[in-house]
């Protein structure tokens, strides 16, 4: 029983990371109906920026804030330069651009920061494990940071005028434009926010899995699965989905098949759930008008 508890707790810690990346995916999906395949690589790049800043002697939290700001700017830039010209292009062409972006960022991080695996510092006290040894200080801290981010995003969208404008731009671009919302900038802002959230997720996961250019590859897949499990049009659902994927993955790895097949089993379970509930556990079922 204690083993199960341990697996669940460490699943929650992993799930927090998936949840934040899933949230970043959902943000871009809600605004643009695209799934950003490059989200993971963008987060990895941000993490490298953070490491560079920390190695340059900045205190952790200053570097943290600077990285989030830089990532936000990068996200806005990518939307302005790469996605804007593709606005009227077929969706699959945009997917092509996403894959291109993924390759570019992946290769450039490898080229600039080399492919060796690096350790990444954690701001949380290591010390003795908490909860009678089940959760490390970093895992607890990372989960807390994730929750803070989620709540902040929720408050931003619910209770600020800008958040309302962004939701409006995503919900009905034409009407939003008519009431004076600058829809294009709202999209760019959405990209910026997603990049910033991804950066935080990257900095939180790097101490656990170590930093290399392909760090986020698997994580992006889990996050995608989590987002779909919860419902891609529902931020809260995506977050819960992310946590669920983390727990399922850990339990499957520990009790069902061992680590070599745990990714496969996790995905099969998710697909099975989706077959029963095709728009995700918390997703809105969209009715087609004929």
């Amino acid at each position, binding site marked *: 029983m204690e083993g199960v508890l341990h697996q669940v707790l460490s699943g929650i810690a992993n799930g927090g990371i998936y949840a934040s990346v899933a949230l970043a995916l959902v943000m871009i999906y809600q605004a643009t109906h695209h799934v950003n395949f490059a989200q993971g690589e963008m987060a990895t790049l941000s993490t490298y920026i953070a490491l560079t800043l920390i190695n340059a002697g900045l205190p952790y939290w200053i570097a943290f804030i600077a990285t989030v700001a830089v990532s936000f700017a990068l996200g806005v830039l990518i939307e302005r330069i790469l996605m804007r010209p593709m606005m009227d*292009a*077929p969706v699959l*062409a945009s997917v092509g651009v996403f894959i291109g972006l993924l390759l570019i960022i992946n290769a450039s991080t490898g080229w600039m920061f080399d492919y060796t695996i690096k350790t990444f510092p954690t701001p949380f006290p290591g010390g003795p494990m908490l909860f009678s040894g089940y959760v490390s200080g970093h895992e607890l801290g990372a989960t807390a940071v994730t929750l803070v981010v989620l709540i902040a995003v929720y408050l931003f969208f619910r209770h600020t005028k800008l958040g309302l404008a962004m939701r409006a731009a995503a919900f009905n671009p034409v009407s939003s434009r008519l009431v004076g919302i600058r829809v294009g900038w709202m999209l760019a802002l959405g990209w910026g926010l997603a990049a910033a959230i991804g950066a935080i997720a990257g900095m939180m996961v790097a101490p656990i899995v170590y930093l290399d250019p392909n760090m986020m590859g698997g994580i992006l897949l889990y996050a995608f699965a989590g987002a779909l499990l919860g419902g891609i049009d529902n931020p809260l659902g995506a977050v819960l989905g992310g946590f669920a994927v983390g727990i399922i993955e850990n339990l499957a790895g520990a009790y069902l098949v061992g680590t070599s097949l745990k990714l*496969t089993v996790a995905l099969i379970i998710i697909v099975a759930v989706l077959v029963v509930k095709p728009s995700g556990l918390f*997703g809105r079922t969209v009715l087609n008008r004929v």
Partner: protein
Amino acid sequence: MVPQANTAAPNMMRTAVVAVLGWLVIALVPTFLFSNYHLFQLTMVVVYATAILGLAILTGFNGQISLGHGAFYAIGAYVTAILMYQYEVPYWATLPVSAIVCAGFGFLIGLPALRLGGLYLALTTFALAVAVPQLLKHNVLEPWTGGVQGLVIDKPDPPFGIDISPDQWLYLFTLFVAGLLFLVAWNIVRGRIGRAMMAIRDHALAAEAMGIDIAMLKTRTFALSALYTGVAGSLGAIVIQFVAPDSFGIFVSIYFFVGLVVGGVSSIWGAIFGGIFIEFVPNVAESISKAAPGAVYGIILIAVMFLMPGGAAGFCKSLIVRFRRRSKSGELRPAKVGDVSANNISAAAGMPGGAGPDAGGSGSL
């Protein structure tokens, strides 16, 4: 919109003659003029083009998005390799087996795909692509698959004592099989079944109202698509003479998808351009930058998407339309059916990705 039935027959004859002549040129010129290495590259182009054609049938013509066709490619390759290595079946006899096995797998994957649309289907197929290499490595299958080491198979010799090198023979053999598959696909897509596929893609509910059995057609399209990609995998295994789980990672699926988008999603011949792209562009990228070839590849990919959002096929079609309009600008010509479909490409391409929740919703209606 009067169908031009009276001119169709001689036109078709001429097209057929041109096609056969063109085919002969494509077959013979490289065979005797190219070095073995270049011939190998060209053979791989044909293999990839066939694999992408399978994806095009599914995604382009039927609107079911797949990010996991590398799985079918892997299954096809392994069926051939296992038959040749463990049971000493001749290489050509493995192709029908591989076709049947892959079509079976495709049919099975097509069943859950009935409930899932857009992104959800993308995830399902992606999961498949992730799972297959792991399963191939797994201990239970090791007696057949050779585990992580993979299997090495022999290069087939030309039959009947024909005096050409094995590479030349492989090229001709691959080209023959691929040509057959392309011809069949071309006929399916132009015919009743192809129209039904496209009707489902463009408006599933309306298609159903017209009497199309959506479940049957979608699962069979999936099977057909898997068959194409699986046979391509078999050919690829014979050409490379080696299979291992790590050469069928998720990137294979991604590259097929890239080839599809670059070639033009709902086009039979775009697949050839896609094959050329995924075979040669990595080399080009490597020659431009040794340090970060991936970045160059990405830049080329984005540049292609910027210049030709409809892929190479869409680009060619729009050029032809523009050229015709200019040369016949005086006449008031009714739009031909073919011209309309050129415009539909963007709509079709827009559908699978964008309609994620919608497609899910219509499933649970």
